């Protein structure tokens, strides 16, 4: 008799033998005892012998079913894509109606990653491009802690936004280097593209510097507007928003004039600072000639020059002979 004490419900065959024991035997899962019982039983019971043979065949056939790997490679590719998407950082987008027009402000968990002047033409495309790298959410959240500072800045009542920045949208280490150098140009002062290239010790990379500034992801906070062409023209800003550059510079007290080729700074109304020894001069002063671009700053006013620690030149004495009567600048 086969063992009866193992499992609960056991179907027995007409001969009284447990079918489970035949299956276990076919799978090679029987104990020595049961193994012997099965073998002594099948010598006398042809039905069970045939059943056991069928289970053995079934087991063999099942084992011979090939592993189907067709489609694994494409499933893996899809999985990798999904994992990348799952890992996208969150980007919260808010639009704020600023005094200089609607601004799109994008924040990650780490800080402000994006400031964009909202264009009337392509408001949707702009966010679609971000979806690739971010889980983009339109945020109704309160961003007044950011906009209060920006508003104060645009009203000439604050010199720095002091926003916490996430540099995730910066495209390269080179761009980070350029934008870091741009951040060091003080409020109310200017340098040129060449000047900035010299500051990062890459005087031949003027065009690359201009490109890096063009794609500044957080304008205003990173003051790419303080960088101009070597001839004093404003060149470009956020695409073709050159008037915006003029307006922002006006906030910082930089006079801009309309020239034949477009907007340019009024060089005759700006002091020239020499960073090397922190001296500032009137633009007509001989001392101001021949200062290396990377060592030169245009400064909006003599009070501004003094605020950033520049001393008046002994020759042209800009403190005694100011270029113009200085008023509190405010555009808005």
């Amino acid at each position, binding site marked *: 008799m086969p063992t009866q004490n193992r*499992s*609960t*419900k056991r*179907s027995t065959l007409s001969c009284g033998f447990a*079918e*489970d024991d035949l*299956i*276990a035997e*076919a*799978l090679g899962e029987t104990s020595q005892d049961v193994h012997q019982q099965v073998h002594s039983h099948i010598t006398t019971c042809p039905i069970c012998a045939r*059943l056991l043979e*069928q*289970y053995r065949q*079934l*087991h063999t*056939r*099942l*084992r*011979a*079913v*090939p*592993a*189907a*790997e*067709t*489609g*694994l490679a*494409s*499933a*893996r590719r*899809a*999985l990798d894509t*999904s*994992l*990348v998407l*799952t*890992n996208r*950082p969150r980007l919260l987008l808010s639009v704020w109606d600023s005094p200089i027009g609607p601004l799109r402000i994008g924040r990650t968990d780490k800080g402000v990653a994006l400031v964009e002047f909202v264009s009337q033409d392509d408001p949707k495309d702009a966010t679609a491009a971000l979806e690739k790298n971010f889980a983009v959410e339109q945020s109704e959240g309160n961003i007044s802690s950011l906009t209060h500072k920006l508003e104060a800045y645009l009203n000439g009542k604050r010199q720095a936004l002091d926003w916490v920045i996430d540099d*995730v949208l910066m495209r390269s280490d080179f761009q980070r280097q350029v934008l870091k150098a741009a951040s060091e140009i003080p409020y109310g002062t200017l340098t040129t593209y060449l000047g900035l290239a010299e500051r990062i010790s890459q005087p031949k990379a003027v065009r690359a510097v201009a490109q890096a500034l063009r794609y500044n992801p957080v304008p205003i906070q990173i003051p790419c507007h303080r960088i101009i062409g070597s001839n004093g023209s404003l060149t470009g800003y956020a695409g073709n928003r050159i008037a915006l550059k003029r307006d922002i510079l006006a906030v910082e007290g930089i006079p801009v004039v309309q020239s034949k080729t477009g907007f340019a700074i009024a060089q005759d109304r700006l002091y020239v600072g020499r960073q090397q020894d922190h001296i500032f001069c009137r633009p007509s002063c001989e001392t101001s000639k021949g200062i290396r671009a990377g060592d030169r700053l245009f400064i909006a006013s003599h009070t501004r020059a003094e605020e950033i620690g520049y001393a008046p030149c002994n020759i042209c004495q800009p403190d005694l002979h100011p270029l113009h009567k200085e008023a509190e600048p405010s555009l808005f």
Partner: protein
Amino acid sequence: MTLSDQQPTTKKYDFHEIIDRHQRAIYCYLVRCTGNIDDAQELFQDTFLRAYRAYISLSPDANHQAWLFRIATNLVKNYIRSRERRRKVFVDGAAPAASHSTSSNSSNAEDDLQLQETAHILLKALQALPFRQRTALIQRQFEGLDYRLIAENLECSQDTARAHVYQALRKLRIRWHEIMNDENG
């Protein structure tokens, strides 16, 4: 930011490494459980995405293969349930009754599989088994899991896990012989 950057450094393996090690076993398991490639691919993706989210809280000494099989098995359970439901709606709605339990994609998928005739019959017969019997048998027969792991995956006792496997084999034997006799007669 790459995936590996986000992995906790205390873990022994990068998650991609875990995928590399177990993707074949999990994928083949899913093909056998579903009988078609489209569904297997979908469940494959779901399995690893779910695993990825849970990986951070997984104990460092966990058996990854057993853990992945458990996740996959749960998804197969939901998948079979929703397929049963869909089929019911189909039949009730007087649409042409499906002649067999495999989904409408199966003919394409089966072409892709290029299985031998018997393998084909057996896989098809597997799809007719209830969830527990089906997954228990596949885990035992194809993936070589022992009853302790199968029991864990199906949240039952080892005896019950064994009973599921045996019951599945009983049904398969009968089905297989029906088909063989049809062909011979």
